[in-house]
């Protein structure tokens, strides 16, 4: 018995040492981003080049990330949130200014996109764009038959009851209803929100599932006919199932910019900057685009891409489409609470 106990304890110690080897020592950078949001091979390349160890964690929606940063319950260095969340983090003084001397590759990011960023980061001090894009409807041409899909209202079409997938993220879900009603995506008018809630409730019986990134797989496996999804998923979805088609509805949509930012509490700020700089390098950005297929704001990388990809209006949006889109803004504590309240009400139905 004694021997066994000794054995178990020494085994535990060995495991501990092993674990701490994996974790311990050397320079590190803690990254917290959307799940599957860059090519995992890049981690190894970065580590080899810089000797900095990457610790990666992922979240599903920005709302999930926010309390962790707000309460500093876990300390991360680099985040990759969306526009409105960046605005909120800046407002609440949770981000630190980036030292662009350490990020020379910022020159690769197109001016157009830095301009877009000013919507939420007015002086371009805190964020470096990683991807941008819009939401639209991905549909299966065979399953929808002759129906023309070009409006958000098609998601309310009863012929496709049980074959519709909606987003499962407060702002993105409300966005669809707000666009149909002709309201701003950033409305905090309670009556307008109520109306949008009613509309979403009405749609609920028709919805197969509320999902985020898994929408792509559901559509690819033909378990549903249409779903709300980001244009960045289109190329990848097409690889899985060539009957899929993507459209940005005529009512307009949201324009999102997801950017790298550094937390206020970051203990490895220079490593974080090294990571951002690495991600902005043209060859890296190109490789990442090829993996992720979300439009990249890196013009130097765009120049390396094939003509037909670059001209694909579903991937690199036309200015016309962009003009028809709205960027999400942070709504302040009261606005957020209002959305939470109606979100819960809609979910309880």
């Amino acid at each position: 018995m004694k021997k066994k106990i000794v054995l178990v304890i020494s085994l535990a110690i060995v495991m501990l040492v092993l674990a701490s080897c994996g974790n311990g020592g050397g320079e590190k950078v803690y990254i917290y981003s959307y799940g599957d949001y860059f090519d995992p091979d890049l981690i190894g390349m970065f580590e080899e080049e810089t000797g900095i160890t990457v610790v990666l964690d992922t979240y599903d929606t920005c709302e999930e990330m926010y309390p962790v940063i707000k309460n500093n319950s876990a300390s991360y260095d680099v985040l990759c949130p969306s526009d409105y969340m960046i605005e909120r983090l800046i407002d609440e003084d949770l981000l630190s200014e980036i030292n662009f001397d350490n990020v020379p590759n910022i020159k690769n990011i197109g001016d157009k996109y830095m301009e877009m960023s000013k919507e939420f980061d007015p002086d371009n001090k805190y964020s470096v764009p990683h991807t941008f894009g819009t939401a639209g409807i991905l549909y299966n041409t065979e399953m929808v038959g002759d129906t023309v899909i070009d409006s958000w209202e098609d998601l309310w079409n009863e012929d496709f009851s049980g074959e519709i997938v909606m987003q499962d993220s407060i702002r993105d879900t409300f966005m669809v209803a707000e666009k149909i009603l002709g309201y701003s995506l950033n409305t905090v008018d309670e009556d307008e929100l109520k109306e949008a809630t009613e509309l979403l409730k009405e749609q609920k019986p028709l919805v197969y599932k509320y999902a985020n990134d898994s929408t792509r797989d559901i559509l690819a496996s033909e378990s549903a006919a249409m779903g709300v999804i980001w244009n960045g998923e289109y190329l990848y979805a097409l690889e899985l199932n060539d009957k899929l088609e993507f459209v940005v509805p005529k009512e307009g949509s949201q324009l999102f910019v997801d950017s790298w930012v550094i937390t206020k509490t970051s203990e490895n700020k220079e490593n974080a900057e090294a990571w951002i700089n690495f991600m902005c390098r043209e060859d890296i950005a190109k490789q990442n685009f090829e993996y992720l297929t979300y439009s990249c704001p890196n013009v130097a990388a765009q120049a390396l891409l094939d003509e037909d990809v670059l001209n694909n209006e579903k991937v690199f949006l036309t200015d016309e489409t962009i003009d028809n889109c709205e960027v999400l803004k942070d709504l302040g504590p009261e606005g957020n609470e209002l959305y939470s309240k109606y979100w819960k009400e809609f979910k309880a139905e």
Partner: protein
Amino acid sequence: MKKSLKFIYIGIVALFLYLPIIALVVLSFNESKSMAVFSGFSLKWYEEMFSNRMIMQAVINTFTIAITASITATIIGTLAAVGIDGMKSKQQNLVLGFNNIPLLNADIVTGIALLLTFLMFGISLNWGTVYLAHVTFCIPYVILSVRPRVNKSTNTLYEAALDLGASRTYAFVKVVLPELRPGILAGFLLAFTMSVDDFVITHFTRGAGINTISTLIYSQVKVGIRPSLFALSTIIFVMVLIILLLVNFLSKRGKEKVIY
């Protein structure tokens, strides 16, 4: 007639319990990433699993946490089980009542309560907070397994040893512990199992980059899970199966085994 009916009944329940497991095992050998179509046999997810650092780190985390937490819980719990026996019955009931709280409380409440406590005391979440949380919910299982073994005879033996001049430590290690051994072992295994399988409490108390197998799976389920995780659980499942079969085979036949 009656026998075959029983057989069918057990078969249906077993099928219900094993169907998802069979599906996972089959999909782990699937060539494509699709969950719906089996397009051909392939071992590539097994390769990917071993080369994926996040998965390997999660495996290491899961087992280091489970081993250290269950050892700590076993030590504290065993001492406590003996100690509680020395208390007056009123005191005993009170302490056992508190012991039952983590056991019967909802995981989500336990997890949240621990999270709030850590933050209130300014403890940033890390590997250590997960370890502390796991010890907390493991101790009750150890006490429940060990306590029934602490009875009159261990008491008498312990006191006899003291009378004969043994030191307290000596008496405890040489006299009490051997008596309690089966209970301790069962408690340790139970605690270990609970720790490995826990998701909710880890979910709330884990720090940056600390993933266990469960939290890694949860974060991937939403994005679209990769079959490499099926490969991982298939391997773990087969290992457990082999260990349990060996234990059963090596032990004497006819004796009813406590598998847990």
